[in-house]
């Protein structure tokens, strides 16, 4: 590196590396008052057939329906009937109860791992409600709400978590890495981001076949940095795929805040602009806004209007997983300070404000959910918990690597079986 140009250099300041840092660290008192939260009902709602560019102002806005007075307001109000709202509320409560029980089960040594979605329940539950049963989801590990809302049996979920005899995945997957074709829920991968462009491929297939089913791909804020995010966006844009691409921005990726994925400079919804596809930024703690946005994108996709990127703005209220203790990197009180509130409380209050719900009904519904989860857990545990597994049917380990068991796996199976599993 010879001849530096002295003329230019003389006035050049020293370059500096900027390393994003979250506003608050352990010991700080979180204060989100500087975060601008647009009011409910403020965001305009373009027609679902509008050019993508007409949505781009919404990528820096925030679609919100439920106001501080618990009323649904504005163009995005999906005007759902009280039964649908109560169904969503019940599903969200079930998700939270389920999370609590399974978290505890892990702590009790009944399984190896668990991940909650506390604070994010509205997103998966309302998305499930806005699509039809046969639309296809390519989820991450934090959309258990999809399965619950679609009526997948709780016991089946738990059997997967316990890797037990009732586990249809035959003990092969880490807990919560569900898969269920009948409920339109693609196998969860441990490798972040992979499902996002897969969703686009599925949607392309649906278009190739002249089908009417659409796909929804999910990704976390942190995982948007993976190349797969870009692949999904590119393929969706190029082929005008009938797909909804959802980024759940819960502010954290294990210990890294969303700024490490680029959120200091742009919203995740804004990525849509660069690909020329529709984009929406949505209050993820507002079940009605989530519902309305997904419904909008689904209508668009289903009428060959192409893909929509939706950012659900929310907050991961608990640890990343049972392996994580967030007090090591953020204030314990941050979740409470988060200005968008609790999604369950917000929907509940809305129903109450409508005169369609009350404390008592809520308490008894919660109790029902709780006992449904407990019952399911009892059923599941009858089929075994993780520490008891992996001893029987050792030979099954060699199946499903291929459609048929080739000779080398057959040999290995025989050896493993004769060893009796250690």
């Amino acid at each position, binding site marked *: 590196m010879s001849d530096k140009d002295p003329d230019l250099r003389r006035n050049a300041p020293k370059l500096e590396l900027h390393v994003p840092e979250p506003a608050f660290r352990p010991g700080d008192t979180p204060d989100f008052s500087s975060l601008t939260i647009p009011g409910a009902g403020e965001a305009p709602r373009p027609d679902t057939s509008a050019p993508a560019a007409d949505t781009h102002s919404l990528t820096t806005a925030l679609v919100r329906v439920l106001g501080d007075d618990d009323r649904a307001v504005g163009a995005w109000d999906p005007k759902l009937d009280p039964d649908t709202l109560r169904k969503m509320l019940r599903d969200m409560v079930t998700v939270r109860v389920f999370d609590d029980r399974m978290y505890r089960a892990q702590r009790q040594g009944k399984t190896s791992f668990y991940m909650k979605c506390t604070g994010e329940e509205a997103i998966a539950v309302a998305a499930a409600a806005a699509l039809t049963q046969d639309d*296809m989801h*390519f989820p991450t590990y934090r959309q258990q709400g999809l399965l619950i809302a679609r009526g997948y049996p709780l016991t089946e979920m738990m059997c997967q978590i316990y890797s037990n005899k009732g586990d*249809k*995945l*035959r003990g*092969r*997957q880490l807990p919560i*890495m569900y*898969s*269920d*074709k009948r409920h339109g829920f*693609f*196998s969860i*991968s*441990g*490798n972040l981001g*992979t499902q*996002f*462009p*897969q*969703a*686009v*491929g*599925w*949607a*392309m*297939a*649906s*278009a*190739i*076949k002249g089908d009417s089913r659409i*796909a929804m791909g999910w990704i976390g804020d942190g995982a948007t940095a993976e*190349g*797969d995010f*870009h*692949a*999904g966006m*590119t*393929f969706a844009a*190029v082929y005008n795929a009938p797909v909804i691409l959802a980024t759940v921005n819960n502010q954290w990726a294990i210990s890294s805040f969303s700024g490490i994925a680029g959120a200091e400079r742009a919203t995740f919804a804004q990525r849509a602009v660069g690909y020329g596809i529709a984009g929406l930024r949505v209050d993820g703690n507002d079940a009605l806004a989530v519902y309305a946005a997904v419904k909008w994108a689904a209508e668009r996709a289903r009428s060959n209007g192409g893909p929509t990127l939706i950012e659900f703005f929310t907050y991961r209220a608990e640890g990343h997983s049972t392996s994580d203790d967030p007090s090591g990197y953020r204030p314990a009180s941050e979740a409470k300070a988060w200005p968008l509130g609790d999604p369950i409380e917000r929907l509940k209050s809305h129903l109450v404000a409508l005169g369609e719900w009350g404390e008592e009904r809520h308490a008894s519904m919660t109790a029902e959910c709780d006992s449904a989860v407990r019952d399911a857990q009892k059923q599941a545990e009858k089929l075994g918990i993780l520490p008891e597994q992996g001893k029987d049917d050792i030979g099954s380990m060699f*199946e*499903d*690597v*291929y*459609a048929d068991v*080739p*000779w*080398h796996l057959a040999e290995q199976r025989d050896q493993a079986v004769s060893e009796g599993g250690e």
Partner: protein
Amino acid sequence: MATFNIIQALNDAHKIAMRADEDVVVFGEDIGYFGGVFRVTEGLQREFGKTRVFDAPISEGGIVAAAVGMAAYGLKPVIEIQFADYIYPGYDQIVGEVAKIRYRTAGEWTMPMVIRTPYGGGIFGGQTHSQSPESLFTHIAGLKVVIPSTPYDAKGLLIAAIEDPDPVIFFEPKRIYNGPFDGHHDKPVKPWSKHPASEVPEGHYTVPIGKAAVVREGPDLTILTYGTMVHVALAAVEEQGLDAEVIDLRTLVPLDLETIEESVKKTGRCLVVHEAPRTSGFGAELVALVQERCFYHLEAPVERVTGWDTPYPHAYEWAYFPGPKRMKKALEKVTAD
């Protein structure tokens, strides 16, 4: 019967599979209107339309991922990675997804797909148009790995791969697309038409995945090889005046160990030949298996003739490529006393 080179044979295989099964779709970089940089997909878009045959963005990861989604839907994607050297951006999707989805879903979802890609050197392509990365796929449980060496096999194996319920990585030896190659780079190129395996039947037939071909029988030693090197090995054997048994593996996973074992037990000597770098190449696995299974029959160490443990150097193509001289020395060594 038509006389085809490997490109024509592969093209024909696509057409037959696509006519038979509407769910077969083909995509990749430059494979649509243009028909692919090696012309393997020529005419497919014209016949089958743009929704079944189309160009893809330059994103090998995206191409594989889209194929995963399509396979999950129920289609059978046949995708092209323009050169094997460019498969790595898709490696995560192949290793973590394509290979494991059947297993991790206990068969609820399967991934029938073919990932076609030209591999190997001998075309002065330098280090990013010459690689032979097959062992990076043979290590991954859940993948089948197929490498044809003739037009006949190319067509039959590709049809078999498309019909296979499992994902197949289909490596195409690009050096012999247009004619077999005996390793004498300074001699004129022979066309396929002189080779019996260029006679390719019309219509549907398959060459079974998992079956090797004994392309030459003989008692002196067993040569295990595949792809371009089949032809180099055959020529070397003739030049040396050896009565060797040459086995074209055709499928690396699942391997036809039975044929291998039988042969080595007969000959007592074995040479493994491939173009990929030696260390942790597929040859290592072959050597390991042969000595495990045929130890008491072996009269000499199993030898390997391979590419060197360096990147493929542009100008030193023929010093890198395991050609006649290297073959000769190894043959002498394996057959000594």
